[in-house]
């Protein structure tokens, strides 16, 4: 049966499609979180494949921090339009205005404020399942999270009380008001995502490729100069050839110096990298349990 061997990417794809089909069958109102970032781009392709020739049965939801790389928003909108998918956008800006999300003085990043915004959006549309692009290799709290990750009526994750998840038998049962986060890319690595993007010939936002950008050195990384950050006197602005490895709030997403202008070059760069992709996100560096704490509150 040697000819019936699946490559690792085909195995991962089969597993993810199975997960997406389970979501479609088990939940009444699932939604797919689509930011325009590389992981959610892969998820969209998997969703296309899982249900064709029919269209995938979920709308898309983006929680917009307002602190964006403009290229990302353009990409998000054009990709959704291309697929004819319904895209719902809820903004942190709006959540602040409504008092749903509250800013803490001195905090520039809006990552934390995405959580109440997301929870309010799930409630507004009565979504009972949010499909996210998180991967277990990103961070060690995520390494312990289930594919079907239960959230209580407050949207919280309880890492000590997770449902066992044997084989591919996912327990999707919830009570009204509770919801599930589902992560079809749980077993994918950053490298798998890039290989898949290359194999499927997927379009990605231009900022993943090398480009010229004004940056300042802060907390050991190159931070993009934007109206959202105040350049300090001791921070000379430099124009460098950079790209982003992961996309978050522009006020805290570090760029890496890179000449990688093609997928092949990115793959070569990632395979030689000696730092994980989350190493360029200041929000994860705050403490050893930063991600666990944010996830407990209901973060993606």
């Amino acid at each position, binding site marked *: 049966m040697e000819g019936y061997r699946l490559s690792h990417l085909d195995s991962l794809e089969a597993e993810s499609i199975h997960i997406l*089909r389970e979501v479609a069958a088990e939940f009444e109102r699932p939604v797919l979180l689509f930011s325009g970032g590389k992981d959610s781009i892969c998820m969209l392709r998997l969703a296309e494949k899982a249900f064709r020739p029919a269209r995938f049965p979920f709308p898309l939801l983006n929680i917009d921090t307002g602190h964006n790389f403009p290229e990302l928003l353009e990409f998000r909108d054009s990709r959704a339009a291309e697929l004819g998918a319904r895209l719902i956008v809820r903004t942190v800006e709006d959540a602040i205005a409504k008092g749903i999300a509250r800013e803490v003085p001195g905090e520039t990043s809006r990552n934390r404020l995405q959580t109440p915004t997301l929870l309010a959006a799930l409630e507004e549309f009565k979504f009972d399942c949010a499909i996210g692009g998180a991967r277990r290799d990103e961070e060690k709290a995520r390494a312990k999270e289930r594919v079907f990750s239960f959230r209580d009526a407050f949207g919280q994750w309880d890492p000590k009380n997770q449902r066992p998840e044997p084989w591919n038998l996912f327990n999707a049962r919830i009570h009204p008001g509770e919801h599930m986060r589902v992560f079809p890319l749980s077993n994918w690595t950053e490298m798998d995502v890039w290989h898949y993007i290359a194999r499927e010939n997927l379009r990605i936002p231009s900022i993943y490729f090398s480009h010229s950008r004004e940056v300042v050195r802060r907390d050991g990384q190159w931070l993009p100069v934007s109206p959202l950050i105040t350049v300090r006197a001791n921070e000379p602005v430099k124009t460098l050839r950079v790209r982003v490895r992961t996309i978050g709030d522009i006020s805290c997403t570090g760029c890496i110096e890179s000449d990688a202008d093609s997928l092949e070059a990115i793959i070569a760069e990632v395979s030689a990298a000696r730092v994980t992709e989350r190493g360029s996100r200041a929000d994860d560096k705050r403490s050893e349990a930063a991600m666990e704490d944010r996830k407990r509150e209901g973060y993606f």
Partner: protein
Amino acid sequence: MTDSPGSAPEMDLLRFTTAGSVDDGKSTLIGRLLFDSKLIFEDQLEALQASADLTGEGQINLANLTDGLRSEREQGITIDVAYRYFATPRRKFIIADAPGHVQYTRNMVTGASTANLALILVDARQGVTSQTRRHAYIASLLRIPHLVLCINKMDLVGWSEERFREIRSDFEAFSARMQIQDITYIPASALQGDNVVEPSTHMPWYEGKCLLRHLEDVHIVNDRNFHEKRLPVQVVIRPHSDAHHDFRGYAGQVAGGIFRAGDPVMVVPSMKKSKVKAVHGPEGETDEVFTPMSATLELEDDIDIGRGDMIVGQDYLPRVDYELHAMACWMDDRAPLRKGTKYLLKLNARTTRAMVTQIAFKVDIETLEKDRAAQSLDLNDIGRIALRTLEPVAYDMYRRNRSTGAFILVDEVTHQTAAVGMICEPLPESETEPPEYMI
């Protein structure tokens, strides 16, 4: 299937599980695999150093790399299964790293459920312990096809071949009572790196492969059942579009066999016959789909098929019954399993109600002794049960198919996953059943 330019190298995927407690060197071994294959990143290393967790020997505590939850680091124990990933040019690996203590048996069972291989560590000084036996039993129960007994800390027994042989024959005496197809014994020192990624220079008497090489080479394709066609239907795809007006596709992950257009098939549990009209893989219509691909089938006849039904070949039929027998591991800490209780049963894509009709025995997983007087199964207990379902369900014996022979029980009120089950033959009338009925 992956041949576009710039695509991933053609490698396959091996899932393996490890279980162990604090002192058997498991974390050091995993750390060594990741370190030596250069898969620990600088910021992870930085975080480890920042947590200032240096051991007496001045080493970084590699357990902190896998113990991802705050409570785990605080208590210095592994509570839950952590998944870790690494790749060599030949294979991608997923490690399900499970806690070893008896109170986390359920986590171990979860980690073992999808594994192709179980890696069990033995401290060469201590030899086979009750924990070794427990882990081997779980590997056997979950039908992990390959087992590696890694006899670690060989440096502390003077690299002694005699000690290695002694432990090996101890384990053989025990494992003969179980169903493990393939066992490999590797003497190693994770601390010094002997026989982990690089062959050892201290043990010329050992002629086998080092651990990583074995993990790269172990043959796993034939562990799947390619003979008995099984497609559990997850969703029915009906596009309702002009281009595909009459399209009706039955989508699911192929759990056994190979499907091609023209194949005679049967739908269970309704037992209606038809023929495959077309098969679709992830790239669209194709010649054949096989396990474990996610696929969509079109059939010649317009018959009633929904989620939870299974499309199978007409030659090897699964069992269709209201009754099923299984080895179960109880996972709910709120209430024990008792005769007469009702649960939701999820088997493939089918969810139905089931009642526990019998607890035949409970297994002491360290001695393998059976307690036939057991009235309940408590958290982490493993035992033989019988269930009666509300409607007929189609299933296989777990030993023939790890996908169509497995189920979970869900508490109808709390929605907790209360048990996992592996379906087996009914117990024979006589008391002296052969050992394969154990599992």
